[in-house]
């Protein structure tokens, strides 16, 4: 018995050299990448800023946090959610044809490859580039935010849609064919039930991400929580900064919880 254990123990592959090499490589990578980091010490008054932000978080501007005017945090939260909702919805609808075009099992290689390249480009370019382009179209404001989110959502939503389209069980469609169904019935009973749950859950997940993105887009002037935050910070109004940050955290936490609850429900059926 003891011999058996020893034999198995000694037979295990020796990985020491490999591990040391990997560790050295990682250390080299860290050294190489640290050359770009210029640490100039804490910014003049930096500790002050940190302390003030903390103070702002503990003692936020209550007027702003609970006021119901268009400048108040509740309205900003509503606006952020509205931007995210419309952006996600438009993106999700536009993503359906795009992802069918990009799935390798339905389309010829040329078309799917080309669409994939387009999707990669959409996902790579930073959102604020699109934001600037849409501000030209719609002027600064939440409308530009909606359009930006709609376009940038297509990238990720399509990527996840494609996976479920490529997993389609074709047997079901064949058996519906054998039962004499027409095309519309085949789509309704053979394809939609297979895709619907995945599509919905992807869309809800993207909504969660878009709520976060909508708050960033404010930085380029496209509505939401970001712009007031930027103004408050550059004017050193820390209690306002605290109020907006609290609003942001609460909003994202609630949306995250709700989204994961609905998605588990969907996954269980």
């Amino acid at each position, binding site marked *: 018995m003891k011999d058996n254990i020893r034999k198995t123990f000694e037979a295990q592959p020796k990985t020491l050299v490999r591990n040391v090499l990997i560790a050295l490589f990682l250390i080299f990578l*860290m050294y190489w990448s640290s050359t770009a980091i*210029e640490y100039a010490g*804490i910014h003049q008054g930096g500790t002050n800023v940190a302390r003030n932000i903390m103070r702002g978080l503990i003692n936020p501007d209550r007027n702003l946090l609970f006021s119901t005017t268009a400048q108040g945090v509740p309205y900003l939260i509503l606006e952020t959610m509205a931007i995210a*909702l419309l952006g996600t919805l438009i993106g999700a609808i536009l993503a359906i044809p795009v992802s069918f075009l990009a799935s390798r099992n339905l389309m010829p290689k040329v078309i799917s490859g080309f669409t994939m390249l387009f999707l990669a480009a959409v996902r790579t370019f*930073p959102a604020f580039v699109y934001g600037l382009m849409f501000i030209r179209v*719609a002027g600064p404001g939440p409308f530009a935010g909606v359009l930006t989110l709609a376009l940038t959502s297509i990238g990720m939503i399509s990527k996840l849609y494609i996976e479920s389209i490529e997993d389609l069980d074709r047997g079901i469609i064949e058996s519906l064919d054998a039962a004499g169904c027409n095309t519309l019935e085949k789509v309704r009973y053979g394809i939609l039930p297979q895709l619907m749950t995945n599509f919905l859950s992807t869309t809800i997940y993207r909504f969660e991400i878009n709520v976060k993105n909508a708050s960033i887009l404010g930085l380029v002037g496209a509505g939401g929580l970001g712009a007031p935050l930027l103004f408050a910070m550059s004017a050193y109004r820390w209690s306002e900064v605290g109020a907006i940050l609290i609003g942001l955290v609460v909003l994202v936490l609630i949306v995250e919880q709700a989204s994961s609850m609905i998605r588990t429900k969907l996954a269980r059926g």
Partner: protein
Amino acid sequence: MSFFKNLFAQKEITLSNGKVVKQPRSIVPIVLIILGFFVYISVEITGFDMQVLIRRQRFFFDILKAMFPPRWDFASDVWQPLFDTIKMSLLGSIIGAVAAVPFAVLASQNVNQNSILRNIIRVVFSILRTLPTLIIALIATYIFGIGTFAGTLAITIFTFAIITKMLFEQIETVEMGPFEAMESLGATKTQAFIAAIIPQLLPTYLAFCLYCFEINVRYAAILGYVGAGGIGLLLDEKLAWREYSRAGMVLFMLFVTVVIIESMSRYFRKRLT
């Protein structure tokens, strides 16, 4: 959900053998009505206007057209910030990923029995995760000054928070059998953890790290917008000065880099799992 399903009268169907079954009504119409209501409110708030979109859509392509063809000779000025971006995300990813390990162990239910500590860690991390990277970077530039350090810090915090979450969920689904077997053979908890748990986690952990690095390169590219270093600074500058052909070059090189990193990461992740 079952509440909504029972709210409306169920449709009764009599089968051929006389048995009556009840078919619950679909909740799709209710969901659609609620969604329609919210969409209406959203359209009102955001000022969404299809006519404006159709009438002015050509302005969207203005900038795009001005970007082509990109100024190829501008490439020499792009390399430096491009590598800065990659280095920022690499360093941030490595530090964040390593720092995440002890916290993930402490946050997982099957290893840490102390529920108070566990819940405190979890709450702190879910709050950390809610803050978008760009906003962390914005705050960091106020504290540490403008430059790559603030950006690296933001990426580190983001990686740290997200890998901790992914990893502790992974630890909780780990097979505890080998761990208990080793303990009953007389191994200490640490020995058992190293020999029985780590081999189960390592491939997924590394795959998470690679995936995070991939996301981080993309995030690092926008951090320059708030002055946190990297290629975003250059991009923002060129866009602000309306030198679109130069901005096009920056975007082109960024695109090629991201595609290369993505396909490398995908290759390694496939090998790992």
